[in-house]
């Protein structure tokens, strides 16, 4: 119990952010028209690629003088993260471009 309280206090800012982001996430996408369900999902999917930051930090501070499991798997983590980010935003843009051009 005490450990939970200690943890809460240590990370109180982060926990506040979580609590508020949940409401923000709900609020921001409420009343979204069904036309946009797919691009919204795909755009949100790209944002979840924010894990790339974790990948960069991980590989950034890994020992690069010798090849280790950490370095190899970390390398793949960065590739996967980038794939999620770049692919996600690119495909969302492609979809939205389609929606756009018929509003002549």
């Amino acid at each position, binding site marked *: 119990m005490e450990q939970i309280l200690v*943890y*809460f206090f*240590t990370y109180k*800012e*982060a926990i506040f952010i979580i609590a508020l*982001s949940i409401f923000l*996430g*709900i609020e921001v*996408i409420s009343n979204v*028209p*069904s*036309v*946009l*369900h*797919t*691009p*919204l*999902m795909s*755009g*949100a*999917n*790209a*944002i*979840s*690629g*924010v*894990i*790339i*930051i*974790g*990948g*960069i930090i*991980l*590989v*950034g501070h890994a020992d690069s*003088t010798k090849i280790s499991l950490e370095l190899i798997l*970390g*390398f*793949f*983590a*960065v*590739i*996967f993260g*980038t*794939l*999620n*980010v770049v*692919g*996600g*935003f*690119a*495909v969302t*843009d*492609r*979809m*939205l471009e*389609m*929606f756009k*051009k*018929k509003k002549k």
Partner: protein
Amino acid sequence: MEQIIGNINGIDFTLGETILELSYLISALLFVVGLKLLSHPETARRGNFYAGGGMILAMITTLLLHKDTEGNGIALANVWIILSAIIIGSVVGLIVARRVKMTAMPQLVSLFNASGGAASALVALLEFPNADMTNLGSVLVTILGLIIGSVAFSGSMIAYGKLDGKVKDIFSGVMTYVNLILLIAVVAISVFIMISGQTPEQLNWAIYLLLGVSLLYGIMFVMPIGGADMPVVISLLNSFTGIAAAMAGFIYNNQAMILGGILVGAAGTILTLLMCKAMNRSLMNVIIGAFGGESASGTGTEGGIMKEINLSDASILLSYSKSVVIVPGYGLAVAQAQHVCHELEELLSGKGVSVRFAIHPVAGRMPGHMNVLLAEADVPYNQLVEMDNINPDMPNTDVVMVIGANDVVNPAALNDPGSPIAGMPIINAHLAKNIIVMKRGRGKGYAGIENELFFGEKTRLLFGNAKDSLQNLVNEIKSL
């Protein structure tokens, strides 16, 4: 950048650190604003651009300015390694995103989601050895990141396989129990890791076991879920990836990751619930897969007669109508008939017929699937009408054309309380004056229930592949 510009609680902070945190704040704001703009048709593209900009900003500043706890920045050799990984990921991502056919969009979204899940699971796995085992909270977020990331990865891969037709639906009652056992195993291993009091090195086997069991759970969890429930599953897995990223954000105490991840997690959850509501089923019900488990209880209409219509009658009926409503379903996507469908719509509009498309929220295999498909074929989006707005017009509609849709127009949902889809809101096609149904064969829909609409007095069927039937219909109308 190394210049010390201030001091909090006895700890100096540098200009570089300050700029990094400031950039995270800007990124986080760009994510929020981007997502908000994405939910309006006028601003959606700009929103996507903002969110992408936020991501690039965070990536660049992290690469340049991030320092570990000892104050060491990222070494040049590591920068090159990271950059090469980013270049590989970007090139592959861009090629795939540009090349893939629009009809393969649900698969692609699953694939990108799987790669995000994999990245989260890998980061958590590799950070585990650095975890402070006395700090249960930090061990917990690492474990959660690993579990959720793995489930999102393997689950999305199976979803991809199913959407691509590579993996078949497998359902048996045993799977519910297997899944329960796997879930218990996941919890048990997690609890063991947290309370064993051993070092991360000693627990190496346990963390890999946890990875394995989580991956297996992801596979088993998506495996029995049927095709028509895919919109729910895809958006659920999407929200998992966000939560996994947020857990990793906790490991690094990185606010941009936490906010971005949770934002996606919350938005994905809402979308999931929206999809469930559109089917009048609970999330639990979808996951357990009640359609497969229950015996279908279609009543009354079985043994009725399906009345066919030939092409010339159909073309005359359509050409001399005042208003036509097209109800597209997954069959339209499978047959890739969206372009010829648009051709038909233009042809009829040219003859002064009002043509609209009625879109059911869960038609297809992902949220908004029909919208994307028809947008690709250049159907103006003001002709796509949501279910609730088109239903009042149904009694005044001359012809409803159902193309590759089934359960979303099944009146049993309204008037047969014993039906597995009872209570699901439907498009009231049965109220229209005439109904033409395009079907590949006489089989039942995904839910395995008879559709009394197909046997109705006003209904005529046009059998065959939707694309061929539509093409023939277009030719026939042109020759009138």
